[in-house]
């Protein structure tokens, strides 16, 4: 219990529409330790946002329990609100108000004095490099500036846990990289970050651990490296001068090789860690007097993981 930012057991949410009942979140169990960047990866409609909104006190769960930032989500929503920050998909700033005014107001809502709220707003404006636009209406902001302001609004009270719902959707590559930098800086300061994304590269590059969610259920949890390794392992393909069967026989018995095949004049080896296996393979072939022609390393992507766990490719479903 201690040391976990989020713990859920059987968290569910059912939506009733006119003629049917939809289970948007179908029993989610997860544990997010403090200080982690935890990503919720899944296609649109998988239940990511619904889960996030329940954890952020915006939507009452239909069932299950959750501890968020050390407080019971169902019994102490007020305390949860004091400790978390939340940045929704729509953002949250008003187009007609100046960025600085929004930050000061947000600070006041968390109980700061006017002076303290002004100081905090100035600090955040400097940190998020919003000086050029802070005293203009939000309507004039670029997409990246607006997203940084919205993140600033979520950070005003220095929460121990920050929820980001699809923080880089719709941003250009440069602004995306800026948002990633900000998330890493929060991580360095010890903030736990819980984000949703349907971008594979974002989950891979940014998150310490990810949960893959599909049809309201978590189908896999782990670090991106673990997940990829668990699913397939790295693939080493090589070809040699002359005696391919000899090379195959030599390598398939090695302890680090999970699976070996030959195909179209190439040896294909599935190994746990390609970067460790490759030097060993080179040495073995060398000492056996076999001369390499080509060698290549292919690492599985999170999409391979997604495909294996759900039977579909995320690239296809996201499109």
């Amino acid at each position, binding site marked *: 219990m201690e040391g976990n930012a989020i713990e859920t057991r059987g968290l569910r949410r059912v939506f009733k529409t006119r003629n049917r009942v939809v289970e948007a979140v179908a029993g989610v169990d997860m544990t997010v330790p403090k200080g982690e960047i935890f990503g919720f990866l899944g296609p649109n409609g998988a239940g990511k946002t619904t889960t996030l909104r329940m954890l952020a*006190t*915006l939507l009452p769960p239909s069932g299950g329990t959750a501890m968020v930032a050390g407080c019971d989500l169902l019994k102490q929503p007020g305390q949860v609100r004091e400790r978390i920050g939340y940045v929704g998909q729509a953002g949250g700033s008003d187009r*007609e108000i100046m960025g600085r005014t929004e930050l000061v107001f947000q600070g006041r809502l*968390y109980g700061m004095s006017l002076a303290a709220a002004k100081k905090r707003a100035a600090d955040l404006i400097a940190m998020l490099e919003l000086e050029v636009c802070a005293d203009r209406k939000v309507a004039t902001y670029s997409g990246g500036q607006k997203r940084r302001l919205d993140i600033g*609004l979520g950070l005003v009270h220095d929460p121990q846990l920050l929820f980001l719902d699809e923080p880089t959707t719709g941003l250009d590559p440069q602004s995306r990289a800026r948002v990633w930098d900000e998330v890493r800086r929060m991580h360095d300061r010890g903030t736990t970050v819980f984000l949703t994304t349907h971008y594979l590269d974002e989950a891979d590059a940014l998150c310490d651990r990810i949960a893959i969610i599909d049809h309201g259920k978590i189908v896999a949890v782990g670090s991106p490296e673990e997940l990829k390794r668990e699913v397939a392992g790295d693939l080493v393909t090589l070809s040699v001068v002359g005696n391919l069967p000899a090379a195959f026989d030599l390598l398939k018995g090695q302890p680090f090789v999970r699976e070996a095949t030959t195909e179209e004049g190439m040896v294909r080896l599935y190994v746990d860690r390609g970067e460790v296996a490759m030097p060993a393979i080179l040495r073995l072939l060398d000492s056996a007097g076999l001369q390499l022609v080509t060698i290549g390393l292919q690492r599985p992507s999170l999409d391979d993981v997604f495909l294996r766990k759900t039977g579909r490719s995320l690239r296809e479903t996201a499109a």
Partner: protein
Amino acid sequence: MKVLRDTWLVFGRYWGLFIHNPVWVVIGVVQPLLYLLLFAPLLSSIAKTPGFPSGGAYNVFVPGLLVQLGMFGAAGVGFSLIAELRMGVIERLRVTPVSRVSLLLGRALRDILSIVVQSLILIVLALPFGLSINPIGVVVVLALIALIGLLTASIAYAAALWLRSEDSYAPLIFTSSLPILLLSGVLLPLGLAPQWLRSIAALNPLSYAVDAARAVFLGHLGNPSVVKGVALMAVLSILAVILGARAFGRAVA
């Protein structure tokens, strides 16, 4: 008190938005002026009709106008809320520890203040036309109009939070406020109406507010209809505030 502090903060935000938009300020002042200049002149001839209450055309007409101002001034406030829902503003505010009642009251106070200021302007502008009223009467009438504004704004915000789209909010507001207004005797006194119309109007809470306002302007401050109208509006306002605050608490933006 957290609720008071939060209400003050929320009020400050929305008052600032209102004041920084000169269009709204101008409309707020011009609207009552238009009624006085373009509608009131019709009254001087009607005032001689049998059944029209005594006390002068303006003392009969202005109270109705004020009630109308209180109601129509607040009925449209949901539009800005729907825009905020779309921008994620309401969701962002609901994640903070801010009091849910304050989210409603702060906004409604802004609406009430603008209505009260408009009402004062209307009263002052009507004086040269022959409107007569004493200072205590002005205070009572403004309190009554403020309650009507609070009642209407709270219902309007609750409706906006439930409907979440201008396309369903606009028809609801306009189709419901027109009969309520017509059946309250706002434009012309219900004393002119046939009995069946008067019976329907008796079910309309707003008609009691109009009666109260007219009694005040005719100098009958001690009239039971004044107490009745103010008390009815106060009770309904409290119910509407509870309704509106609940809508802010559970709004799924």
